[in-house]
């Protein structure tokens, strides 16, 4: 039996989440709506699988609401919410820890800390990504629509395009790499407005 969990009953010196007051609902909605996109980006960065990330996001939203009463109204909601999300992400990976494709807990904790630091630029990253995508060829944008929008598998896209699955994977890989470099250059330009034009990603798909 789980003796550790059982015999340490009633000795947890932790701050306890309390259910929110009934009139807190509107306050929560306003704050939550303002942080939702960054919260989602934080979770998606640490949980690459879209379906799993959705589950973690949902669990986080639920946990936020249930412990909203512990949030100080003069505090930084996003920072608090990211702390809750960080816990949910680590819990998620802990559940999958037998999978040898999962990072160690120490690395995940370091990544979560770094992701928290990156969050301030999440909106700027999204805008930069949008601009980079806009500069792609029609075929590259079609690949994004199919793979990321319609969630078609590489095999389905390969059939539609009369290409091999390997070629589709390779195109996606090149595309992501190019966009990553493009986003970094655009963000650097924001930091240094005189830095010159931003090169577009190389055609790959």
């Amino acid at each position: 039996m789980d003796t550790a969990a059982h015999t340490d009953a009633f000795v947890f010196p932790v701050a306890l989440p309390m259910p929110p007051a009934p009139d807190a609902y509107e306050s929560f909605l306003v704050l939550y709506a303002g942080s939702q996109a960054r919260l989602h980006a934080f979770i998606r960065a640490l949980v690459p699988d879209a379906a799993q990330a959705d589950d973690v996001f949902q669990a986080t939203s639920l946990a936020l609401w249930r412990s909203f009463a512990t949030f100080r109204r003069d505090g930084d909601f996003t920072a608090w919410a990211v702390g809750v999300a960080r816990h949910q992400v680590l819990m998620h990976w802990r559940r999958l820890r037998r999978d040898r494709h999962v990072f160690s807990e120490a690395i995940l904790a370091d990544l979560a800390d770094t992701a928290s630091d990156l969050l301030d630029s999440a909106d700027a990253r999204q805008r930069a990504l949008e601009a980079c995508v806009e500069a792609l060829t029609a075929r590259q944008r079609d690949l994004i629509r199919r793979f990321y929008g319609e969630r078609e598998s590489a095999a389905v896209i390969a059939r539609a395009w009369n290409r091999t699955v390997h070629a589709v994977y390779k195109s996606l890989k090149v595309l992501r790499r190019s966009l990553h470099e493009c986003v970094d250059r655009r963000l650097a330009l924001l930091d240094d407005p005189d830095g010159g034009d931003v090169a577009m990603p190389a055609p790959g798909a």
Partner: protein
Amino acid sequence: MHPADTDTLLALADDHLTGTASPDDVRRLEALLAASPAARRTYLGLALVHAQLGATLAALPSPPTLRSGGAPTRRDASWLPTRRIVAAAMACALAIGSFVLIVSPPPPRPAGSPDGYYPPRPLALSTVALLEGDDDADVAARPLPTTTLRPLVTTHLRAHGGADVALDGDSVFGIVTRDGGALYEGGLQARVTQPAATFSVTTANLRVVDRGTAFRVDRVDGDHVTVTVLDGEVEVQARMRLPVAWWPFDPEPAGGARETTGPLPLDDVLAGLAGTAGRGVAACGGLVGTGALRFDGTPAAHVRIAGGTGHVVGDGLLAVAEGVSIEAVIVPEWTGHESDYDEIYRKDDGEYRVLLSFQNDGARNAAFTAPPVAPGPCLSFGLHLAGIGYHELDMPLDGRDGRPSLADLRDGRPHHVVATFDSYTGTKALFVDGTLRFAHDYPVGTLVLAGGPAAAEIGSHRGLENFTGVIDEVALYDFALAPDEVAEHRRRIAMGEPAVDVGPPARNAPRWRSVTRIRAGETMTFNQHTGLPR
């Protein structure tokens, strides 16, 4: 970072993000990430590209081409004129039903029924009309107060409350009250037929209440529900996750001092249900708060609850249908001997029973146990499930597979026990000290049949099966607490605080809070767990 390292890092990171990395690749990537914060930023930069691509304009699907008279979109004013036609068509469909079943009088007492039989209230439908000739005789054969319909074809109902309801052919719908039900699968369309009538559809933590209207509710997936208003207005509400009744056993005034000489504090502080105790019950220091009750195991060790009952099974404040949770903090001194029973909570309306107790049946009563377990001491959670009958979840106290042993529970320390049943998942579960210990699954949509004229009891069953030990913080909920809620309650109790912070005890506080109102022609999607719009 050296450019070659960056190349390697990005190649490995991409494989990891897309799930194509081998275990060796993951270990190599991990080494790179551990070595440098810059590597972690690079990895996360690529991860964000992967994550945010789905939210770019290029990823959006092409806008659908709506046919004339197609499904309404949010605030699609062009659809408005058709809504009355749809509503009228529903009413006409009811009138031409090919099969009509009248379910009005209470069912007669069955011949040869045992003493203690309590008649159930009738099914809250007046008419069941099946348009396409599907012989759903099942409904007629089971006129229970709570019944789950799983129609194969479009099925039309008229609720006693005055609403016409059209169930989609693939839906699963639980009839719970005269003016509402629970949607588990598929979709339905409802329309109230009289100004005074009302109807609500519940999906786990969310409830759609009509305000003089016709509306549709569809389950999109396990988490989301779409509400479309055809006429009038509906209010979408989220559940207040608070107990129906709560007995903290704290003496008044609560000031921290132990009160062991005054009248016993037996009343439920939420609904005002008064308790009376036998002489085998005494006040003692609280496991949580200022007070608790010590039961001496004699026939006089009982607390009987007045109120919360109904005239027939299925009625009353303590009746539950879609889900239930029983929560208590206990210091048990149960012997565990065969044929010894210690009740924690029990409401026993004949076979329509809700109980949480320590039991050792020996080799008897195996037919009521699901899943089957070896004879021996157990913590038992009994419920009558509509269409299935009375079943107990008997958790062996054997110290195996994460379950506590009897000795673990008899260690003299307080233990938090919670029994839950959730018709939305079908799961019946027992938690001890915040951790799920034992569970059994039934079909989604299985409803509880409980409530009625019998008094609820704490620590006893009609003066028998008396508890020995201390009981505190008994709470009854009309929904299933989620595992993380149970864990939170346990943490609160560990700090000496009530499981739920209900604020100043407010009798008859609302059990649902308004999320939003939706008007005719509008469609909105909600997360049924959080109550938040998607």
